[in-house]
């Protein structure tokens, strides 16, 4: 079985995002970029499935400007077999990403598509679900366990109340949650090998997709700073504030 893994280039999770001076976006110029942590978990899961003999090939795809190839190379260094880069000028909206990926899936015919549940930049948590809908295939989102049992994939999902397990027909989409696995570090020999693994570059036009605009980013602001605190005089007042003002209990 072939596994397709999607990876996104995002701000390094150790770096705190800062809003730019004219409040049009987050300032990413010369910011350290990295593989989205959830995507890293997706790559790890795919590699483990390959190592256990369940999967035969791991193909990794990324969409965005040329620099995304760094994250594809990182994924190849972790153990993926080959890469596909769909080159765009900027990061397309989720629905466009899903449409591009749908074309890749149709061409590659993977048995399983593993994606991060969300990217730590846009925090949308939607591309995997959208891709599943476009392909009319089932999804196991927020996965903490993935098992192939017979001709189905069983996905244990982290839901609000606890865990839910679903059985999905194949092909299926799995989106990863943090506890699914602990990603490995790329080894030096694999980093060296990754340089020679195949990586093809395509454009949305090659895939016959025209990118559409569904929403407009009007402004980006820093969240409100922590207000100077107040003193309360009693437990009653404290509880009242926590319930009605802070809304944390």
């Amino acid at each position, binding site marked *: 079985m072939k596994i397709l893994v999607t990876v996104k280039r995002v701000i390094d999770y*150790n770096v705190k995002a800062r809003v730019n001076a004219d409040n049009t976006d987050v300032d990413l*110029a*010369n910011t*350290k970029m*990295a593989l989205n942590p959830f995507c890293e978990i997706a790559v790890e899961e795919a590699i483990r499935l390959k190592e256990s003999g369940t999967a035969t090939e791991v193909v990794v795809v990324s969409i965005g400007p040329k620099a995304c190839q*760094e994250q594809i*190379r*990182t994924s190849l*260094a972790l153990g993926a077999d080959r890469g596909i880069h769909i080159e765009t000028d900027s990061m397309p909206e989720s629905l466009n990403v899903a449409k591009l990926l749908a074309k890749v899936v149709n061409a590659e015919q993977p048995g399983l598509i593993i994606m991060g549940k969300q990217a730590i930049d846009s925090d949308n948590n939607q591309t995997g679900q959208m891709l599943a809908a476009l392909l009319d295939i089932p999804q196991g989102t927020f996965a903490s366990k993935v098992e192939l049992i017979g001709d189905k994939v069983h996905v244990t999902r982290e839901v609000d109340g606890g865990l839910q397990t679903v059985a999905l027909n194949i092909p299926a989409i799995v989106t990863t949650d943090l506890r699914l696995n602990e990603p490995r*570090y*790329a*080894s*030096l*020999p*694999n*980093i*060296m090998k990754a*340089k020679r693994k195949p990586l093809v570059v395509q454009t949305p036009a090659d895939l016959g997709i025209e990118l559409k605009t569904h929403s407009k980013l009007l402004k980006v602001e820093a969240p409100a700073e922590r207000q100077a605190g107040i003193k309360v005089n009693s437990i009653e007042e404290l509880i009242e504030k926590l319930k009605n003002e802070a809304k944390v209990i």
Partner: protein
Amino acid sequence: MSEYNHPYKDVDFVIKEIVEFDSFCQNAGLADINSEFASVILTEAAKLGSDVIAPLNTSGDNQGASLKDNKVQQADGFKEAYQQYMENGWSSLTAEEEYGGQNLPNLFGTAINEIWQSSNLAFSLCPMLTQGAISAIKHHGSEELKNTWLPNMISGLWTGTMNLTEPDAGTDLAAIKTKAIPNADHYLISGQKIFITWGDHQMTENMVHLVLARLPDAPSGVKGISLFVVPKFLLDKEGNTTSQLNDAHCTALEHKLGIHASPTCSMSFGDNQGAVGYIVGEPHKGLSYMFTMMNHARQDVGLQGLGVSERSYQQALEFAKERIQGTHKDGSRFSIIKFPDVRRMLMQMKSSIEAMRALAYVASNETDKSRYAKNAQDKTKHFSRVELYTPIVKGWLTELAQEITYLGTQIHGGMGFIEETGSAQHYRDARILTIYEGTTGIQALDLVGRKTLFDKGEQLAELLNDIEMTAKELQQKPQFNNLAVSLENAITTGREARQWLLDNAQTDKSAAGSVSVNFMMMFGYICGAWLMAKAALKAQALLDSGEGERAFLQSKLVTTQFYFDHLLPRIKTNIAIIQSGSDSIMSLAEDQF
């Protein structure tokens, strides 16, 4: 406990702009290797350093290594961290492909060792010593010896140690007493060694001790010492580790001021039948073999000075930003980074570290340039430069590390004196660096003696000429006028010192030794000024063309200015002291002390 974040911006800048690594790779014909690839590899190594190795720095210091039944137990977590280091292949970085290495440039080794050293100085010593042992076997061992030992050492499966010092033979290795008696296809080694770093541990299935010893027919003195490979566990015919312990073990651990997690062992060889050993190269040449590794080993220790300084700086900076200890007129509070004197200390740390990194990396790349030189003349030229840089990198970087880790603790105020704050550990750990692998005094003697007087100051003159090229470049740019003047003056001062040494060393036998440390420090400051000036030129060029990160490049201009304002002026003191000669140093009779 403090976190370690790889200072990738400065590292990338030094590799790309100061070392000019890409043009080196092109000239050397290294396909696929460039500064971008360096950055990829460093990013991955930094993850392991920050996430796995750095968190063990404090706990390792608290717990230390311990000895029980002749076995050294390393601090908790070290075995697992080493395992990851090994499995990820980092031990094979610069080693030859023939034995399973990745054969990457020496500069990669330096930049990556900086990560391990900043993460955890005590931990980093184990791989560092292994690299030394690999290098000795690679350069001087027979084919059989190389095939037997190198692959498993390069893969990290076995670690290596260097057994030189004995109770009566430290700096003076001529006094070595350990014996080696021929016995069939091997030798039987017996004797005591002390100060053996990572001399024993339980992290790997086997260990390879490199031991200096005398053959029965050896001439006395330095020309009668041979080098042997002595495994911890004997190998079977196929070269696999057996369960049979060799007659070599650790008898005691030293209680040290710092690097507590690095076991410093007293080793006993041949308490019973004699430890099985195999000779490296030819008899009686052991000490000269040691010298071939010296440049590398000494530069590595210089790099440790950079590593621990960076860690100390990161911790002090974080504290200075968070420690609220000032009050505005309106009653609002502010953190101590606003105080000018705290700024001074942080700037001194920051600009020193940047100069140190530039010098360490430039020096490291000279080894690559020598290796990949197109002709013998270039090879010699770059090798001579390696030789010249080595005592400066070792001596100057480790001396600055004392000052930087001192400042790191000072910035913390009273908290700095408290062990659990963690700043004191860097201060303690740094203290060994000016001592081992040749003290500062030895480095300085090497610089004035073998590296300067020996060739009548030719190498030093060439270095100063190279620095002058940068000074000329500065003169072309009006905004760098003051830097140009300062650098020109520094070059003149350097030439005066060189001339003084050449003029006085013949007539006054104490002259060289009396001025040596000031001489060495002075050339450290001058090299630092040179490379910081280069950095400023490059930063300005990038700013002018609109490339790169403005905030970083602008800060480079400021750290350069600070370096010229606060560190370079120290050479005026150095020259004054040098020119005072040996009189006041040597005049007292010993009884008068």
